[in-house]
């Protein structure tokens, strides 16, 4: 195994050195190949995800296939723009000169994919790495074996197998990989392994991007309008159970709510869960299962603590055979219980009540920095307070969606409005409106960065940020041989010192005076 791995690495390094991965055409071809793969093998992916996690097709499409499709298409559309050198202004003092920054590939990079979104979180960084012109080794998670072997078997059929390689295996393979020298390591997973990855990277001075998790809190301010409450509840459910049964790094971990509003919220929460997952959610095909026995046991143990068990107000049933846990709500479990100190990563939702919603800020600040904070509120002062007084990878107001999907939903909302408009106008498709909507569809180059801070990791990706993560921004300054000032060179004297002082302040007026001898 070790020899094989080293041989693969040598091949990747060789391919990179050959320079072929640097060309825009190679990068685009690979992205197109990836798109074709996703398109051709959609059913195989559905199958693999169902095997590994019992993921429903809609979820699989929304969180995995669709994400990759969107991300690769976006990279294809924007690649020329991303690759173009950016010009930088230089001080007049250096005239004639020009400055620019070009993005160059880092070299051979290693991507660790996780098991919870075994397709999208493995391939999304790969898209960034390819777009930036690197060769890639992808280590697929052994905890999602069907997806891992799908990737290992299919990727070589579609993509340049000398430049993009997939490796499967467990901890031993991971360790062997970490002993090698890489030019970047992109890791998605837990803080514990994140530390191991970074320590190993330190030996070779390899930069790392760590996408970790954390307990993502959801602040729910007291809402008055029933429709707002309903929307909020739906979005919380979407962010908790709708994303791989809570096994998502940006999944809702717990809710902070005012005591007086809690009963109303819990009521509607229960009702909506029933609407979405039926009377017997444990048999619902819309709910992902827990990835494996270990994790199932871990979650089971969280619930076994007697004080925690006593706080269960909804759900709580488990199916050991099928590894399914019902959407479970807990009200005020002890704060020192494991369920409130560790990232839950599963379908359990603790609700913590506060006297005043403002206390949520202190609550969050007294814990490690989460990947995301969600907050449902209409109070703009409170919003500003959350943004400026807490720290997290990102903040989302009034929703829990993973940011990848922003563009998607905006399309949807927009089109819906547009469509109504057209409908009212009697289905007359006006050219201007059509153009307008196309303009709106082009903002895909601008996406929000995604990444953590503190315990939730560092480094960011998505869209252009993915490209940047796998690029070195090389500063280039170019001068000509004209105009060489005597003042740069020794022997030093007072005149030269004065000259430099003015020059540094870009005080061109005094500089001129000095040069023509008017300044002493």
């Amino acid at each position, binding site marked *: 195994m070790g020899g094989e791995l080293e041989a693969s690495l040598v091949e990747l390094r060789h391919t990179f050195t050959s320079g072929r991965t640097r060309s825009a055409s190679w990068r685009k071809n690979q992205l197109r190949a990836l798109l074709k793969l996703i398109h051709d093998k959609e059913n195989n992916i559905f199958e693999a995800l169902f095997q590994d996690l019992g993921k429903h097709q809609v979820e699989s499409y929304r969180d995995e296939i669709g994400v990759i499709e969107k991300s690769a298409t976006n990279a294809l559309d924007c690649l020329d723009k991303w690759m173009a050198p950016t010009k930088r202004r230089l001080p007049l003092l250096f005239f004639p000169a020009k400055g620019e920054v*070009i993005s160059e590939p880092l070299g051979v990079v290693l991507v660790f994919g996780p098991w919870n979104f075994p397709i999208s979180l493995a391939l999304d960084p790969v898209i960034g790495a390819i777009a930036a012109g690197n060769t890639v080794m992808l280590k697929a998670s052994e905890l999602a074996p069907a997806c891992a072997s799908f990737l290992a078997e299919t990727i070589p059929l579609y993509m340049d197998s000398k430049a993009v390689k997939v490796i499967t295996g467990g901890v031993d393979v991971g360790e062997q990989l970490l002993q090698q020298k890489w030019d970047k390591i992109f890791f998605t997973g837990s803080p514990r392994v994140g530390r191991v990855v970074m320590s190993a990277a330190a030996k070779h001075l390899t930069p790392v991007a760590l996408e970790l998790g954390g307990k993502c809190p959801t602040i729910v301010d007291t809402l008055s309008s029933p429709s707002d409450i309903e929307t909020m509840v739906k979005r919380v459910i979407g962010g908790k159970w709708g994303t791989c049964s809570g096994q998502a790094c940006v999944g809702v971990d717990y809710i902070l709510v005012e005591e007086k509003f809690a009963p109303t919220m819990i009521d509607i929460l229960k009702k909506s869960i029933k609407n979405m997952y039926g009377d017997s959610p444990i048999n619902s095909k819309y709910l992902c299962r827990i990835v494996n026995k270990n994790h199932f046991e871990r979650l089971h143990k969280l619930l076994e603590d007697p004080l925690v068990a006593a706080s269960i107000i909804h759900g709580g049933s488990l199916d050991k055979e099928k590894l399914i846990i019902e959407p479970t709500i807990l009200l005020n479990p002890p704060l020192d219980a494991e369920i409130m100190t560790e990232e839950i990563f599963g379908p359990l939702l603790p609700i913590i009540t506060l006297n005043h919603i403002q206390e949520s800020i202190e609550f969050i600040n007294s814990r490690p920095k989460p990947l995301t904070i969600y907050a449902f509120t209409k109070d703009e002062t409170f919003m500003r307070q959350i943004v400026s007084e807490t720290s997290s990878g*990102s*903040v989302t107001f009034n929703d829990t969606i993973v940011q990848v999907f*922003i563009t998607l939903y905006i399309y949807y909302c927009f089109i819906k409005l547009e469509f109504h408009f057209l409908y009212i106008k009697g289905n007359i498709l006006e050219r201007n409106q059509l153009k307008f909507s196309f303009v709106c569809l082009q903002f895909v180059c601008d996406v929000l960065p995604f990444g953590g801070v503190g315990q939730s990791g560092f480094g960011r990706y998505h869209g252009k940020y993915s490209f940047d993560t796998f690029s070195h921004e*090389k500063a*280039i300054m170019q001068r000509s041989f004209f105009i060489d000032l005597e003042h740069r*060179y020794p*022997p030093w004297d007072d005149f030269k010192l004065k000259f430099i002082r003015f020059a540094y302040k870009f005080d061109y007026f005094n500089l001129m005076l000095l040069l023509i001898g008017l300044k002493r």
Partner: protein
Amino acid sequence: MSIVSAIMGTEEEKKLLFDGEAATSLVKELRASFTNGKTRSYDWRVTQLKSMLKMIGEHEQEIVTALRDDLSKPEHESIVYEIAMLRNSITLALKEIKHWIKPEKVKTSLTTFPSSGEIVSEPLGVVLIISAWNYPFLLSLDPVVGAIAAGNALVLKPSEIAPATSSLLAKLVGEYMDSSSIRVIEGAVTETSALLEQKWDKIFYTGNGRVGRIVMAAAAKHLTPVLLELGGKSPVVVDSGINLQVAVRRIIAGKWCCNNGQACISPDYIIITKDYAPKLVDTLKSELEKFYGKNPLESKDLSRIVNFNHFTRLVKYLDEDKVSGKIVYGGERDKTNLKIAPTVLLDVPRDSLIMSEEIFGPLLPILTVDKIEDSFAIINSGTKPLAAYLFTNNKELRQQFVSTVSAGGLVVNDTTLHLAVHTLPFGGVGESGMGAYHGKFSFDAFSHKKAVLYRSFAGDAAIRYPPYTGGKLRLMKVLMTGSIFSIIGALLGWSKV
């Protein structure tokens, strides 16, 4: 006077006692003052930057003296490369900070819809800056400017190898800056180790790759991001058919006028074609003589070697058997004053010590090649340097250089100047480090870019929620394609997907 010395005395004692426990309580104190939000305010940042500006304005002479003590650095160099550069950096931060701290709206038509996005720069928290001895003033305070501008509390650990500057920094920073949030800790390995055990929100290290690895490994325990400014062998490629005099002067400016070669972006070696090499050597000789006279060991315009260890290291390079015969200019040394004259070596073997380690001193080996294009392969066979330089009039060669040579930064037809340009990111790649700073990049290096998304309660799409149906999957697919016709089609139920 006695009070001052008494205070200094207790400070001495404190220094001696700085261990893990002291470091823990120091960080705790700083974290408390970060948590109370003081450093986040715009006013605090501006006040601190202004008092730093005042500090260097009022103590210029002391700084120059300290640098002379530590390195015999010529006043001119101290003012140009340390004081003036820092002043520029602060002035720029003061001028731009208003723009830097503004949340960046994500420029999309998102804003008009039930959603808007912005990127907010927030301070990381309590950061540690460990600096180097070669530009002990600039390399200590320049990152501090970024850390303050971004609103962090910080500890600065100046290098013990430049002791005069280190204690001056401790004194001045203590006097001028807010000591509840900005501290200087002096010391060597023990103190640094105690500091590295603590949990920081960012570590900024300037120095060498060996310690860089230690810093990063220590940071890994706390998942702390690091910015490493390291060095490397920065090559200079000299093409033929150029204005050789100007080129040579610019090489000298980057090599011996920068702390006698003890700078991380100093030219380390030259690559030139065989037939052009003699001309280069002649020009180097005549220009060096113009600058530093017939006896450069006496010149006041050259820094000394920082200490005896480094002096011995450099002498070892020169005295290696296969190298000692290659000296074509210079080679003189003065052990008592730790001075080494500008030294040029021609055709040194590539497996020599001097060609396998970063020189970081006044020795300049010249390698010769048959064709100038061959130089790129030589550069790429080593580790990635912090900077690479090319002198040429040939556009194609320039293009090839830019696309094939990987280094932190490149300069064509000059050396080291990119350091002074705040619009260019300054930082290494591979062995030369990770992360970049200067200008806005410094601010960014000490900020977390927090994505903030505002949504309204309107515009909720049922397709997001279970029960999942075939229709929802179809709609989702067309939405992903972004084609407006398919979307309208799907909404009307005409979908063919």
